[in-house]
């Protein structure tokens, strides 16, 4: 008998009476403003939120951030608004995932900033949801020391329950719910950021 059959037979031979699972738990969160809650939650875990009124405002914010960070090498995922990124910031080095040639992994490892959009944003916890795909790299939001996400207010939802309820049928190979910069408390419970992932996690939350 295979291990599989043995385990399944053992489980089935226990005579356990099947129980009916409870009905689906519905989100009980009601926020007056999803954007306000998002902007309130993320900084509690050392994430940063910059709220702007329009997509143009978001790009202006990026100007400032790139300058402040001295960002030379930027890797950008394909879930961002359509724009000729390299043309707007010609003096910086870009890797556009799925478009640029060259070694993505090596570029990510040496990049100053990872730039991404998001599939969804959860107000309660100040989280964004990023997925993997042909133009969406996992390492782009993971290896650079700074991760900047451009998030339109239209993709905000209350919490993880509303997110799973809205889930589509197709599941990509990887979905990450990111709720702050990489951190650890493993040395004497002292908070240290950027242990493996980005040290800074900046969300530019923009209206449309």
């Amino acid at each position, binding site marked *: 008998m295979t291990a599989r059959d043995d*385990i399944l037979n053992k489980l089935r031979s226990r005579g356990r009476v099947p129980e009916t699972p409870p009905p689906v738990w519905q989100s009980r969160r009601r926020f007056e403003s999803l954007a306000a809650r998002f902007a309130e939650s993320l900084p509690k875990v050392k994430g940063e939120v910059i709220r702007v009124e329009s997509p143009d405002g978001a790009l202006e914010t990026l100007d400032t951030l790139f300058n402040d960070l001295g960002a030379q090498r930027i890797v950008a995922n394909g879930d961002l608004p359509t724009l000729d990124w390299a043309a707007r910031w010609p003096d910086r080095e870009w890797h556009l995932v799925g478009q640029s040639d060259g070694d993505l992994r090596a570029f990510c490892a040496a990049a100053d900033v990872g730039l991404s959009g998001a599939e969804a944003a959860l107000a309660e916890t100040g989280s964004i949801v990023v997925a993997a795909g042909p133009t969406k790299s996992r390492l782009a939001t993971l290896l650079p020391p700074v991760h900047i996400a451009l998030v339109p207010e239209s993709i905000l939802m209350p919490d993880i329950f509303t997110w799973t309820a809205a889930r589509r049928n197709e599941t*990509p190979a990887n979905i990450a719910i990111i709720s702050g910069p990489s951190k650890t408390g493993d040395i004497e419970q002292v908070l240290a950021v950027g242990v493996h992932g980005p040290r800074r996690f900046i969300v530019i939350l923009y209206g449309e």
Partner: protein
Amino acid sequence: MSGVTFKQFKFDAHKAIADPVLQGAVDGATRTFRTARAAALADVPDVDELRDHFKAIRSATLSRLADHLETFERQAAAAGAHVHWAQDGAAANRIVVEIARQHGAQMVVKSKSMATEETHLNKALIEAGITPVETDLGEWIIQLAGEPPSHIVGPALHKTRQQVAELFSREVGRPLDPDDIPALTAEARRVLREKFLTADIGISGANLAVAETGSIVLVTNEGNGRLVTSAPPAHIAVVGIEKICPTWDDAAVWLSLLGRSATGQPLSIYTNTITGPARAADLDGPREMHIILMDNGRSGLIGTGYEEVLQCIRCGACLNACPVYQEVGGHSYGNAYSGPIGAVLIPLLFGLESNEALPHASSLCGACLEVCPARIDLPRMLLDLRADEVDQHILSREEHLIESGIAWLLGQRRLFNFLADMGRIFQKPLVDQDRLLAVPPEFNPAGERRLPTLAERSFHDLWNNLREEDDPAAPVYGWLHLAAVVLALLFILRLLKGGKTS
């Protein structure tokens, strides 16, 4: 693997109690976790109802576990993952080593996993000539120290910054400042980043496995879970069969309680869900994914009074709440699991007789049940395990005699009262001014703690003055009773001298 006998537990507990550095570290860490958990739960509307709901999900899932496992297997395979089954830890290790050999792997990176701690996978890998590198900062610290984890969530919480700096300094070959924790962390980032990028395989556990899509979910704060499952060309996940979660809606409930119960976070920083290997068009991510579904003693608990223990999601809240854990530390439990959940799980998975002390490593205070997100009745199961020890004659014959003798005696009210009255007379030379028993510590079964003496008059006796009506029954003692006195005194003496199983 040796078990945890009374002798062993007492030895390790004594060591932990006598170590002020360890005491301080464990006290501080568990208090931080406790406080954060309480605050995080208080912020959730209807949190008690949510916990009840979660318990119902867990119970219903376990009642049809075989079906859910088959669904998981089917969906994971459809997503392109290879699903393996392991009856025990050794089988799981063999499968991992075999896959690693096929890849010609020299070095593997690991994300913190209790399942692979349970199977001692690192040892198996090293024996096969493969170098495992733990990447969770806490796990890396204890790997460098050559120790097992002392806490489910904070494996190195017993280590001080000085000890960590010493370990890291040795690793990088130059002295590091213990007071600069960001620098220590940066050093770990530097060393481990290179490992992530050059490892042949990434190995993880799973916080949960969602059946409806064949996905595994990994929760970390550091991001090592994402790196281990994204950077190397292949990913192996070792998953206990009880970690199955039927749907994404159920997973949302699970996740919303896990972070809050463990570290007081509404969600951990990275909730990483993996469904098969990278798709053909994806530009990064592992090209191969293996999932090992491991039983290792779990299936035998289904349908028994102990099934509930499989509802555990390894949040560690019971450790943080447990006053015994806080004194004895994680290593006294002789296993990767510790605290109240360890005291129940270890005997159930690895044998009651060899771990006889663990069901007794609790004052049954109930703090663990109070904080458990799934409301697992650990005190009830500790009582059940103690009863099993009696039924299976794991406790000594002497103890059986003493307990039975005293229980019988307590059913004989007059005899008992008479014996107690005798005790009042015989104890006189041993009663000190505080009405405590004056015996040298080496003869005192309570150690440093002083035992009480019998009062000069019992309440039964005092009642005669207190009562408002006459009670016709006055005690009469006969010589038969006197004979029984001698026997019972012998019982009591044995209890005081050697009642402890050792």
